[in-house]
């Protein structure tokens, strides 16, 4: 696949299987199944990776952050395979690709004040020319709306969830990244705080030119900040396209199911029919055909035979035999 414009991040056909259980009775779980998507680099964008639990989104995040290696496929950053680079290039990768995690409390080592990880990031990943470490930290703190006096020297338990999450963003900004992988950054925050963090992400994209890979199960927040979206189901991408197209008008039956299951905060828009689809138990066998077969209201015979490939329909891709 020739690439004319170098994408910022390109995920090519990655798969990852986990084996659990004892030596001979091990269960294989295919967490990620030949997933491909790319985040373009011309201008900052917020790319959403959406899916429920078991969809593989967290595993994909961990692969991109180099915590685990994919069984097959590759991840290219600015054209280079991130698992085949030397330590100098690896440092560069760490600078340009940062992360924010879901749980703002456990993200900090409780033994140290929160400055600890900020200083380490500043020292190890380098700061802007000429700036001292403290200055770089203060600049990052201010850009996320924190006053240095209110967080310097404090321990994690002394700060609120919102402050901690902002701190995580500040830490991620210190090395001037191009891409921040945000794994459920607002799920553990109260509703009123979510808006602030989401607005902050939009600000950082507009003013600091930072792209985000926003990983979530919450399509409402996704549609607020996202530009592009990929919907994951049991390890595979079922639909991918611009968010303003996919969310109001979902093509894939799973995307439709997801959209219809979101409770609207509007009492005049209540669900009309009862949801009928059965719940999938965690230990069901891997099906041969389409993974959504047993929950799909439009299943056909051909859906059972082989998994549908991603087909281009308009300006999005859908993996469904209906199209």
């Amino acid at each position, binding site marked *: 696949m020739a690439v004319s414009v170098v994408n910022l991040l390109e995920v090519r056909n990655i798969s990852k299987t986990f084996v659990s259980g004892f030596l001979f009775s091990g269960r294989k779980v295919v967490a990620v199944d030949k997933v491909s998507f790319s985040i373009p680099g011309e201008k900052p964008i917020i790319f959403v990776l959406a899916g429920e639990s078991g969809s593989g989104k967290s595993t994909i995040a961990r692969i991109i952050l180099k915590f685990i290696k994919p069984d097959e496929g590759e991840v290219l950053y600015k054209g280079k395979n991130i698992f085949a680079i030397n330590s100098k290039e690896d440092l560069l990768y760490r600078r340009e690709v940062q992360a924010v995690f879901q749980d703002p409390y456990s993200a900090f080592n409780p*033994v140290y004040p929160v400055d600890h990880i900020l200083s380490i*990031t500043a020292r190890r990943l380098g700061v802007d020319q000429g700036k001292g470490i403290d200055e770089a930290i203060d600049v990052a703190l201010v850009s996320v709306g924190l006053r240095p006096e209110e967080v310097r020297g404090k321990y994690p338990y002394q700060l609120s969830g919102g402050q901690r999450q902002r701190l995580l963003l500040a830490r991620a900004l210190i090395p001037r990244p191009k891409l921040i992988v945000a794994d459920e950054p607002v799920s553990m925050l109260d509703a009123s705080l979510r808006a602030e963090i989401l607005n902050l992400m939009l600000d950082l994209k507009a003013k600091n030119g930072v792209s985000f890979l926003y990983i979530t199960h919450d399509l409402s927040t996704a549609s607020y900040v996202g530009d592009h979206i990929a919907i994951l189901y049991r390890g595979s991408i079922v639909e991918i396209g611009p968010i303003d197209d996919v969310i109001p008008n979902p093509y894939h039956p799973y995307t439709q199911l997801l959209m219809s299951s979101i409770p609207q905060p509007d009492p005049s828009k209540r669900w009309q029919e009862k949801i009928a689809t059965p719940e999938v138990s965690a230990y069901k066998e891997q099906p041969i055909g389409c993974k959504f077969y047993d929950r799909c209201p439009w299943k056909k015979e051909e859906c059972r035979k082989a998994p549908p490939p991603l087909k281009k329909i308009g300006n999005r891709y859908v993996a469904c035999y209906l199209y």
Partner: protein
Amino acid sequence: MSKTQKITKMFKILASLRKNRKVVFGTTAYVLALFISVFVLLNYPPSSKKVGYAEPLLPPSPEHILGTDILGREMIVLLAEAVINSTIIGLTAASIGVLVGSLLGFVGGYYGGTIDYVSRVFTDVFLSVPSLLFLILISSLISSLGKQLNIVEVGLLIALFAWTWPARQVRAQALSLKERDFIYLSEISGERKLEIIIREMMPHMIPWMTASFVNAFMSAILTEAGLSILGLGPQTDMTLGMLLWWPLNNAAIYRGLWWWWIFPLAAFIYMFFSLYIVQIGITEIINPRSRVV
């Protein structure tokens, strides 16, 4: 963190130990016994430990505060020696045990896979074997070969089994720590693997290692006493166990030579319990975890 912050941090950890009354009480009691022992040794001539220094089996009197033993040695001096020697044995066994055990346990827990499998099997074998029995076996073998063990060698012998519990503990800690969010965050902040182990993980493991240390210390003193009472101890040096072997072996109770066994027994119980109180205190600090560590 600045230098001053680092030092404050160190003091904070020590402070949490200092705040616990049991830890302070137990440690003070033990150290007090050590000080008294050193004081005694400094104020008595070295000949007081030798055979024939005074008349044998003298009951306590103003000249011989705790009496004399069957060889005419000054009891109080023997007690002082025993306290110090047992401490040396305890320290040797516990230090080696905790160091080796923690290393083995950590490497297994952190790296997982085959390394962990091998280290786990190794640890489990040593854990399931009745350690005292084996030590008895080994020391009988050694003594039958005519070799006499000194206190450091006894310490090393006990260390042979003292590493197993720390290994288990530290492995469990390593397993749970390596999956913590802040460890992953450290990785993407550019911290190198070794730095992460020492700077991020160690502070969490130190309380457990300390508890293991105190535990191993207590266990060593107990084991030494067990071996010595059976006659397998360091015959030439005086330890708490040997101090009990002498009267037991010479029917002291039957013969009414109470000072020969009551003082050693009291000393033994005192040393053991002061450590026990420290251990309870440390367990309190670990569960529930105090805020700082």
